[in-house]
């Protein structure tokens, strides 16, 4: 549960997620009995909304705000395992963790890796899931319903199971992928052994895994487009491409925005794939910022240093998300 809230905390303050906006605007005070009208008045007076949001706000504070505040606090200390057991051993070190972070080549490396992962992953997920959704939307036969379930499957499969299977596929000497390539007389690809290749391999696996959910989102959005638009366009002689370009894509604008924002946040926190498959190697080519934080905190017990790292990542995510919302607003205003 903290997870969802954790994701939501990244919404810049004062910015209502557009979903909520449209949902709210549809709620009109129902005309009817006096009691309902009184309730509507109370809502207008502004008490009830607080009652409704209180549970999620409390959870947000407990599992979102408080941990972030604590992490900020810890990032100015040298907290380690010894300090956990005995608080008198914890020292304030000021900005030392942050200066160390900016001098740490491994942290630089992990930031660069994360940028590459985002650069590969976000367009990858967007294109793959949109394409699959468009293709799946062409029919509603039993086969297509079955295919829909099939495409969703990677999203709900345990990452460890996925890692085991993909680990076998990617195996350089005995893996299935290279066996298939050898049939075509193509040399073995060092999927996870070569630093440059391994980033692509992990991104590929993550795109495959991350697309299923977004396919569902796009399918839902596609089905919400009124067929009249297409009929009208067809009458005007618009071909397939024009219908896609001038009706489908504009109508999917919000869905695309949503997918881009959530996918970007997810990929900025790229963690599980390198964690289970490469442990950040070879030569740190797949060490993402999240993996760096995890290793620092939970393998080396440098909680202060790890907190500084996670705070920097947190700020990056906030800034990136804020920029997206801002450009979205500019687009709407235009």
């Amino acid at each position, binding site marked *: 549960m903290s997870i969802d809230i954790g994701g939501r905390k990244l919404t810049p303050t004062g910015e209502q997620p557009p979903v909520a906006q449209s949902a709210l605007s549809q709620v009109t005070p129902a005309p009817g009995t006096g009691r309902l009208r009184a309730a509507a008045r109370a809502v207008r007076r502004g008490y009830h909304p607080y009652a409704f949001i209180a549970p999620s706000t409390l959870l947000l504070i407990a599992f979102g705000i408080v941990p972030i505040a604590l992490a900020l606090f810890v990032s100015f200390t040298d907290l380690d395992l010894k300090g956990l057991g005995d608080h008198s051993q914890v020292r304030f070190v000021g900005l030392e963790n942050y200066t160390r972070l900016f001098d740490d080549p491994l942290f630089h490396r992990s930031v660069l890796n994360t940028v590459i992962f985002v650069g590969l992953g976000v367009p990858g997920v967007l294109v793959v899931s949109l394409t699959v959704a468009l293709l799946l939307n062409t029919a509603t036969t039993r086969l297509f319903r079955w295919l829909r379930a099939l495409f969703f499957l990677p999203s709900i499969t345990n990452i460890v199971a996925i890692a085991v299977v993909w680990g076998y596929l990617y*195996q350089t000497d005995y893996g299935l992928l290279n066996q298939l390539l050898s049939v075509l007389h193509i040399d073995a690809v060092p999927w*996870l052994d070569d630093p440059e290749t391994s980033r692509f391999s992990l991104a590929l696996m993550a795109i495959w895994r991350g697309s299923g959910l977004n396919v569902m989102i796009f399918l839902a959005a596609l089905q919400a487009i009124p067929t009249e638009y297409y009929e009208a366009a067809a009458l005007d002689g618009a071909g397939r491409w024009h219908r896609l370009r001038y009706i489908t894509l504009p109508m999917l604008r919000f869905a695309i925005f949503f997918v881009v924002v959530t996918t970007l946040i997810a990929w900025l926190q790229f963690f*599980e794939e390198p964690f289970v498959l490469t442990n950040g190697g070879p030569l740190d080519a797949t060490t993402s910022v999240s993996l760096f934080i995890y290793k620092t905190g939970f393998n080396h017990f440098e909680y202060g240093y790890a907190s500084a790292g996670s705070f920097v990542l947190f700020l990056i995510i906030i800034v990136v998300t804020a920029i997206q919302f801002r450009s979205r607003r500019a687009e709407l205003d235009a």
Partner: protein
Amino acid sequence: MRRTRTAATTTALASLLLATACGGGSGTAGSDGDTLEVWVMSSQTGNEGPTFEQLVADFESVNPGTKIEVQPIPWENAKDKIATAVASGDGPDVVQVGLSLLPELVDSGALMDLSDEIGSHPELAADRFVEGARPTMQTDGKTYSVPWVTDTRALFYRTDLLAEAGYEQPPQTWAELKDAATKLKARGGKNFGISLNVGDQFLPLMFTWQAGGDVHRDDTVDFGVPEFKEAVAYENSFFTAGLTPKAGPWKYDEVQGFKTGVTPMFVSGPWMTKAIQEQAPEINGKWALSLMPGDTTRTAFLGGSSLGVFSKSKNSEGALKLLAYLSQKDTQLAWYKASNALPAVSEALADPALTSDPNTKVFTEQLKQAKIAPPIKQWDAVAQEMTRAVEQITIGGADIDKTLASLDTKVSGLTSR
């Protein structure tokens, strides 16, 4: 990839703090009275929990009224669980700790000083344990833990393929190992001479010891020793000559390579004998084990885990009794039979139950000349830097002198912390 990782990590960090705040001094380890809570490490596929319960059933019948609660902890979660226990003060009475974590845990003050009580239990005398494991027991002259199980490395080789290459006996020295690998590589095709695992932090350590040096000195580590450079250069020579696949541990399937003969030699631990027997029965009788080759010494690495008493335990007397029971020869042998983990008590290691099996015999012999990794609290972070440097040299082709110099600077930064 989950959007929540940082949030989850932050929450985990915070909950540790909260646990400390709430736990404070009021935390109680284990349970009251005559109950002993024991944390046993378990592998993913392992059955260590129930097996351990059976092991201590005898102890319970000899000590009526004492109840032992066994909690299996998966190795992957060991650090999280132990950190939480340290933070909250709410831990078990007896805890199994891997050797790599032990120095840091002792430093944190989470383990009880057993120096005064240990004398009254002859089973816990240091000289009963295999020599290489004895240094793990003490820090600054005080005893904090007792060895429980051990682990080491040996050379696996295909007897048939080495015989074809002119080696009726396994290679004994560095020169012979290199020569054998070169001859095996000369078979041509996709064949290699050996599979050296660069991700294994113990390989450069073992080579350093075999060259007659040690990176551990004066309670810290020094990668400037000439033998370390010699070790890395030796390891690297296998890579530059193409004698070993350039792949990490989690990627290269050593069992497959061994079965097909592509990599007819590799260095690994006891668990691998079982894996080969099960996954490659067709090469039964065509492979054997040997002590690590070496020039000055044939030292291998000694790993494993120890048992300690949590400092907040209310039943330290019972906990020590349990440690004494677990260090008895019969208990150690029973655990070996149940779990396949090598014992830590010399007497048990010399028992025919182990030495009658030729493979296990090699490991028991190797244990007699095995050393632990430098017992410093920053070892995990240091080992990661060391492995990274070795990887940069062997796989990345980086310059040895420059890489080792920057490793030295980095490590002094880490150890001075």
